[in-house]
């Protein structure tokens, strides 16, 4: 554990989250919370021909959950549904460029969890980590 977690790129996504807001014409929307801290994320998707054509998210949370959701939306745009569903902890840590300690895994995985919900997988209220 070090202050690496708060490197510039992560803080930048926290302070200026990408793809933030509503998505007119969304084909799927999902929402969930991290019961540990009340953080919440909503994902809006436009899925076309088995690909994530567009994505926006909303919510409130800590640096890790907000930056992770923001980076995830930037990455997932244009990916196939299969690729989107394959996102795991290692993938997210590489995306953020930092390992995340056990006490913050739920923060990291809130965005991917809600993305899976929007894609019809996973179970609301069952956040891994």
């Amino acid at each position, binding site marked *: 554990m*070090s202050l690496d977690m708060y490197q510039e790129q992560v803080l930048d996504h926290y302070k200026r989250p990408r793809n933030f807001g509503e998505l007119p014409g969304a084909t799927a929307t999902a929402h969930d919370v991290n019961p540990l*801290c*009340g*953080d919440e994320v909503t994902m809006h998707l436009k899925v076309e021909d088995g690909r994530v054509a567009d994505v926006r998210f909303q919510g409130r949370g*800590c640096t890790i959950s907000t930056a992770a959701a923001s980076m995830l939306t930037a990455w997932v745009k244009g990916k196939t549904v299969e690729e989107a569903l394959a996102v795991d902890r290692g993938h997210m840590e590489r995306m953020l460029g930092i390992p995340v300690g056990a006490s*913050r895994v739920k*923060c990291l995985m809130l965005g991917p969890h809600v993305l899976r919900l929007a894609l019809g997988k996973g179970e609301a209220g069952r956040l891994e980590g």
Partner: protein
Amino acid sequence: MEQAGVLRGFEQVREDFPILKRQVHGKPLTYLDSAATSQKPRQVIDAVSDYFSRYNANVHRAIYALGEEATREYEGAREKIADFLHARSASEVVFTRGTTESINLVAYGWGVKGAVQKGDEIVGTVMEHHSNHVPWHFVKDLKGAVLKYVDIADDGTLRMEQYDELITGRTRLVTVTQCSNVLGTINDVKEVAKKAHAVGALCLVDAAQSVPHFPVDVQDLGCDFLAFSGHKMLGPTGIGVLWGRQELLEKMEPLLGGGEMIREVHLGTSSWNDVPAKFEGGTPNMAGVVGLGAAVDYLTRLGMDNVRRHERDLTKYALEALAAVKGVRVFGTPDVDRRGGVLSFEIEGVHPHDVASILDVEGICVRSGHHCAQPLMERLKVPATSRASFYVYNTPEDVDRLMAGIRKVQQVFA
């Protein structure tokens, strides 16, 4: 700002806590999470170790020297705790796993299996810990009890005048925390007990954050039940106490059947042992009880008035330091005579998780989250707070390190 001093007799306290010598992330450990669980002095660690090394045997029924020693220590601890609380007798002290189990025991034995009728009212407050909410939800769901809640004022103190509206002829129980684990507010439970008794209702006090931190005299408070945990008062985990008035405990049904709680068992029927054994089914947590006894000895030596003064001084010092920092909001009353050493705060623009993570890098342990008080978080309109809490081993230097940590948090997010 004037540097707060360390109360006489407390200079050596840190030496008794082995864990305070360790480092975290290469920094000295600054432990500010005693409201969650306290650290343990070697006197308590040794007492538990001694129990297993020298006289471990099942209490009460062993007809040999070892068992007699174990029973003497076990019941001796009960006597110490009774004295500590000013209970009328040791038989009013029931050992449980902790505050949660103690309150559940009353909710079950007095509420669910007892005389609560549909429409009977239980009055709580919005500042309770989940452990003093959920057991009453059971009584509501199973018996049709009606639950009512006293609100807080903006300064985090209870709106005492609401008791006069909420307590009615249907009120059977008034349950209240003596000290909030989020706001630090010390409630006037003596007055609450009086209001409850005026209509013939009982008063239960959640003392998880009070018995460890200031003198508690159950006779003076006038309450009927009082619940607390050992691990928040220098003792081991998994041991706690329900204190109750003898005549009420005698009428109450047990929660666990088997072991020490029986008088006679036949095929298909059984009768109960006397209070408090009636409530201590199963082989008890003997080492935990002995450890809690050692913790009570330790606190008694320090003097609970001194413990209170020490924490009050630290709280005053910390409140003044926090008030001087722009962008930091402290929850609860600024009146240190009405609050314990629990400080919930938020740093503008920074999530409480991030506050805790950055402070952790500095070796500082604070808690971030809802503190098992989601109804209070809703009332305060925040998802979570950061919380620093003090105990006998904390010093003004710990507060200084917290303040430096907070400046660091603000720099990261500047």
